[in-house]
């Protein structure tokens, strides 16, 4: 104890005390926190667990029973979730779009706030509110055995239905009023299929009756091919087309040439001496 007391004025002493306090508080919290959302324990009812999560995290905007909240000006504070289905929860919560950080032009993907188990509980609860699209099965999103035929057909569907907003290379693009269509290259296969079924935000719906699950899987195969294809022409500069390439050509290429020319012209070091 003598050692401790002699070091109490050490510059790092305060830091150590704070750390100790934080660790203690954290351990106490984890020891005594209320046990929520642990679906690993046998016999947990997904729907009732999801209901608990929903009341805490979603009901503020979507209403205690997912009925939605209408504002005085007759717009949605949070839209009703009856009939949106499990797929909608899996997409909105699984990509971090929900819970919404703040209202805006569109819900932005961010760090996912719930664990996969919690998301499936929420999905089970919302699905129980009314019939809606289910989360696609793994066979609907598996493109590991896609043939060239399927990729080509998927490409035709992609170019007809998706490229207008998401860009021919699935890099995404700008939309009116500050909105944007996100890049699809970092989106999981399941979320892409769900987005087509649901039409989240301003995105149109492409339901299974018009573009069949097989055709959706072909589109997915094409996007997967886009992600993995070898770049023969060097860096694609974000696949934004002639604008970025022109910018690079003029600023990068011509700029480098002009800079080099000016530099060469200035290389005129003189010795200030006579020849011996």
């Amino acid at each position, binding site marked *: 104890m003598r050692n401790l007391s002699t070091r109490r004025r050490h510059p790092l002493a305060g830091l150590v005390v704070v750390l100790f306090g934080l660790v203690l508080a954290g351990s106490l919290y984890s020891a005594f926190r209320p046990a929520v959302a642990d679906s690993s324990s046998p016999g947990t009812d997904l729907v009732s667990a999801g209901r608990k999560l929903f009341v805490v995290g979603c009901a503020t905007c979507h209403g205690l029973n997912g009925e939605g909240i209408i504002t005085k000006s007759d717009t949605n504070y949070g839209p009703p979730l009856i009939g949106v289905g499990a797929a909608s929860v899996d997409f909105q919560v699984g990509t971090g779009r929900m819970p919404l950080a703040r209202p805006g032009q569109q819900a932005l993907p961010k760090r996912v706030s719930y664990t996969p188990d919690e998301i499936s509980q929420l999905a089970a609860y919302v699905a129980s509110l009314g019939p809606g699209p289910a989360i696609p099965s793994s066979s609907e999103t598996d493109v590991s055995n896609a043939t060239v035929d399927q990729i080509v*057909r998927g490409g*035709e*569907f992609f170019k*007809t*239905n998706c490229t*207008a*907003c998401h860009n021919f290379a699935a890099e995404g*693009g700008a*939309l*009116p009023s500050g*909105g944007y269509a996100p890049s699809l290259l970092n989106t999981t296969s399941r979320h892409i299929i769900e987005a087509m079924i649901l*039409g989240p*935000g*301003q*995105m*149109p*719906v*492409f*339901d299974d*009756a*018009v*573009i*069949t699950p097989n*055709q959706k899987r072909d589109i997915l195969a094409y996007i997967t091919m886009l992600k993995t294809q*070898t*770049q*023969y*022409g*060097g*860096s694609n500069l974000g696949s934004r087309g002639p604008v970025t390439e022109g910018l690079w050509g003029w600023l990068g290429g011509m700029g480098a040439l002009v800079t080099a020319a000016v530099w*060469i012209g200035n*290389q*005129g*070091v*003189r*010795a*200030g*001496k*006579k*020849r*011996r």
Partner: protein
Amino acid sequence: MSSESRPRIPRTPDSVEAPTGTDSHGDDSLLLAGHNDPIPDPGLPEHEYRPTDVDPAMERRAERQVAGMFILASLLIVAFCVAYFAFSPSPTGQTFHGFALSNLTLGLTLGLAMLLIGVGVIQWAKKLMTDHEIVEYRHSAASTAEDRDEALVAFHQGAEESGFGRRALVRNSLIGSLALLGLPAVVMLRDLGPLPGNALSTTVWKKGIRVVNDVSGAPIKPQDVEIGQLINAEPALFFDEKNADGTVTPAAFAGTDLQVEKVKAAVIVVRMQPEDITPLPSRAGWGVQGILCYSKICTHVGCPISLWEQQTHHLLCPCHQSTFDLADNGKVLFGPAARPLPQLHIGTDKDGYLIAMSGFEEPVGPSFWERG
């Protein structure tokens, strides 16, 4: 008389030889002589030497640099040849961070080799080649009086000897044949035609043609279309059709005809809440339960539009940002488009599939000359 005979001036103006004779240098001699010049010509400043001129060590260093660049370039050229055979350009060839190794190495080696040769040559010229100042004088642009006189004499002599002015028959027939040379050009312009006729004003849509999903050719039932749905559609004529008895009716168009008709007939089918739609009185009932069908071709310059915002009912053209409100008869909300998007009157056939109830009532796509 040629302009190459400019004097090359050594470093001090004393030794400049004034150009002589009736030359093209104008007043150069006056300037150089300094006569009547209120400010005396200061001449060229004294030459300053480069480090490589005065220091043999620097000179050897520059020499090594230049030779080093050329040798490195040679090595890279050899590396290019090696890479050509070592790496396959096929889709299954090696890759490096997503880039094709073949293209990457070929480009880098040859590009760097040529760059090094260029940089080496510049370095050689800047550091090692002879370094002295040169004065070049401006000359008047006109030829000398003698040259001009000589040319005129030759021209008049040619005109006299050819008899161009004398032999009117020969001259006029030549002028006539030359004038007729313009005629073949005009005749060949005919092949730019034939005139489009009414092709710009018409599409293949007419009453009874099914509206089908583009690419797959699948017909569309209204109950399969959800609120917020977008379907990029085409007339059923463009797709092979399976009949009930198992036979296949081939598409009515093929090849170039198909492409020509397809670009004009492309439509989009959207569904929105019926109460959101505010149709013109003449267009009430043009949709089916909130499902509306519009031309996909922008009325500005004809880009295919399908940026559909399902919540605002706005359709945006990606080319020039023309925005159409499909809930309000395709009205232009923003952008350079001058006309609303043409709407197709749709209904359902006896099997319950979406069909056109008439063709487009106005030309689709951009304005053209005859349309005003």
